[in-house]
């Protein structure tokens, strides 16, 4: 029931807004559907807390501690982003960057995108997971090109082709997995792609095929996670699309893609004869962190800057999951949560800052704090949080990851520390003059929505000081599920 509501809400939203998305009250309607989805997610969570794992819809959907927390996070950020988009998209319209028709496309596709992510998270069928991931790309391609500028078309094309090719690799990996599973689970083919069944027989799967499947899946879904060297689409898609889309791409889609990788990793790592997935993820993750933090220098565009920062953080998370074990997995899950909240909050402030300055170039954004202290402080605090300053949650998770790395991969620790330092210098150096200094910003026709920003940052702050017991319980259960190696 809760699941039906959870998936039905955005589906109904997509259809309704497909018709009414250009109306004056459409942004509010979008937020209403967002809040409905969030409430449904809360109800589902409550049910999982009470009754444990759920297997629904003829075993096609499976809810466990690992995905239920991502479902809640996705629904929550989806909801707050719709709150942020309310004034943001209105301002964009008044500045003449989009028309009413495109606003309708935006609203409808936004709900569809939420739906695809929720399906990808809750489905038990690894084939459907693929279908949902591809649908998530397709529903956002036209949103990246919403402004129809040359740069946005280029970004959209890159996004479409690179993620399309990447996801084709993942389909091949899924086929190989099916091939391996069919040997054990029987040729009926009905159950051989269901994760719960795969999980039950994971030690019996053929190791050679499994290894091949995992490599393809890692490359395929890794493209969507934005791991270097497969990250090429990410900065462009983030920079050229409308800001609410940057926020959900960065805060949610990357997590969902990583979730897909982890589902397969947990099957792999339980099979002692198969190739260990850990080292692959460790090296891809480390490469992303190092590459992204050095790319942070010489950025001109503020959204591009934070897009590279997303690559860096996804790298950190992949690195931590690659190390495996209860502590590293716990830290990585925490990092997924806080990164998602912090990064979307930053994009919210960046969106309004860029509107005020009339430009996304960092050199044009100056002195935010004089004209609108809340946006200025939001950006400053958000940046400090994402850079891993105590007492924010990112500090806690990065600290845990670094200390675990010292034990498990001592050689990688100095590399990580240097990369984090470089990232700190790069981002802080750019943000500081944007917040302080002389201003040339203008007043916006609609008051910006800053409640989501400070809500997110407050949660991140709380998570840095204290992880509530039930959340810790979840993380532990999920960490156990993901396993080691």
């Amino acid at each position, binding site marked *: 029931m809760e699941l039906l509501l959870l998936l039905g809400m955005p589906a109904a939203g997509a259809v309704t807004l497909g018709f009414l998305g250009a109306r004056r009250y459409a942004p509010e309607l979008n937020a209403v559907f967002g809040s409905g989805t969030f409430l449904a997610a809360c109800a589902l969570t409550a049910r999982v807390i009470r009754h444990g794992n759920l297997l629904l819809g003829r075993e096609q959907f499976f809810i466990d501690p690992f995905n239920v927390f991502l479902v809640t996070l996705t629904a929550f950020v989806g909801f707050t982003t719709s709150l942020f988009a309310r004034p943001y998209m209105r301002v964009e319209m008044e500045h003449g960057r989009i028309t009413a028709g495109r606003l309708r496309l935006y609203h409808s596709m936004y709900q569809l995108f939420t739906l695809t992510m929720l399906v990808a998270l809750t489905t038990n069928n690894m084939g459907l997971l693929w279908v949902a991931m591809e649908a998530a790309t397709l529903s956002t391609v036209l949103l990246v090109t919403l402004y*129809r500028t040359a740069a946005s078309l280029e970004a959209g094309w890159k996004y479409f082709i690179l993620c399309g*090719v990447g996801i084709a690799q993942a389909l091949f990996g899924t086929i190989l997995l099916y*091939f391996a599973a069919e040997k054990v689970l029987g040729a009926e083919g009905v159950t051989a792609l269901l994760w719960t069944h795969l999980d039950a027989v994971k030690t019996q799967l053929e190791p050679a095929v499994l290894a091949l499947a995992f490599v393809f899946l890692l490359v395929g879904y890794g493209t969507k996670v934005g791991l270097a060297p497969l990250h090429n689409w990410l900065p462009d898609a983030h920079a050229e699309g409308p800001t609410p889309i940057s926020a959900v791409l960065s805060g949610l889609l990357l997590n969902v893609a990583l979730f897909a990788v982890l589902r397969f990793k947990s099957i792999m790592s339980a099979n002692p004869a198969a190739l260990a997935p850990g080292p692959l993820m460790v090296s891809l993750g480390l490469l992303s962190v190092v590459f992204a933090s050095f790319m942070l220098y010489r950025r001109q565009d503020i959204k591009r800057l934070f897009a590279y920062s997303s690559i860096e953080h996804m790298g950190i998370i992949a690195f931590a999951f690659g190390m495996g074990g209860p502590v590293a997995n716990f830290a990585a899950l925490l990092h997924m949560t806080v990164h998602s909240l912090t990064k979307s909050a930053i994009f919210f402030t960046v969106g309004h800052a860029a509107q005020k300055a009339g430009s996304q170039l960092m050199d044009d954004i100056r002195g935010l704090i004089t004209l609108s202290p809340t946006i200025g402080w939001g950006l400053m605090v958000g940046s400090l949080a994402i850079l891993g300053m105590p007492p924010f949650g990112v500090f806690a998770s990065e600290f845990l990851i670094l200390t675990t790395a010292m034990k498990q991969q001592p050689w990688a620790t100095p590399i990580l520390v240097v990369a984090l330092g470089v990232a700190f210098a790069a981002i802080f150096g750019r943000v500081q003059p944007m917040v302080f200094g002389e201003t040339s910003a203008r007043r916006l026709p609609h008051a910006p929505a800053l409640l989501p920003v400070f809500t997110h940052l407050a949660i991140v702050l709380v998570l840095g000081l204290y992880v509530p017991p039930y959340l810790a319980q979840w993380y532990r259960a999920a960490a156990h599920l993901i396993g080691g190696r």
Partner: protein
Amino acid sequence: MAHTTFDLQLLNACAALLLLLSFAMLSQRRVVTLVNLLAVQGGLLAVATLLLAWRTGQHHLYFSAALTVALKAAFLPWLLHRLIRRLEVYWDTEPLLNISGTMLMGLLIVVFAFGLAQPITQLASTTTRSAIGIAVSVILLAFLMMITRRKAMSQVVGFLSMENGLFFGAMSATYGMPMVVELGVALDVLVAMLVLGVFFFQIREQFDSLDLHHLESLKEHD
């Protein structure tokens, strides 16, 4: 194998033709012909599926054969032809690597693909397992085509050809994926092409051309 008979030979012939078609696509610069080749590839795939359905008696394969004909042999080529006419893109420019070089690369890729498919082929119990290597070759050749072509339309044909290869691989290794997945994949491909149609017109409107070198400005400040 008790009855290595005529239908299996036919199936293998289909597989061989699919590989040939991939090479034909690699060497073809005329976009209209490229789309026709893609349609033939879709048709061959449907024939192979039908043969397999008849041979194994699996009913869902009949259904996916019908789906393949409708989508890959008829609708998508029709859509692409329409786009080509409307956008007037008939020729691809010289590929990044010249044709003979590409063909040589293609040969190497086929050798590599058979090597890659070796462990799967050994484990497969399907009668069509010898075709797995061909499926992997088709996928990788399509990949090569996407890398070497400049025009958006050729890249899309490459993308669809890769999807055909994946479909053929699933079929020869496991007699196809579960129905719900196959339907989902078909739906995604369909939607992808529709999105692409919209997208092409946007590119066209902006640049007055579908040449992808217009789409390289972001590299400079990247």
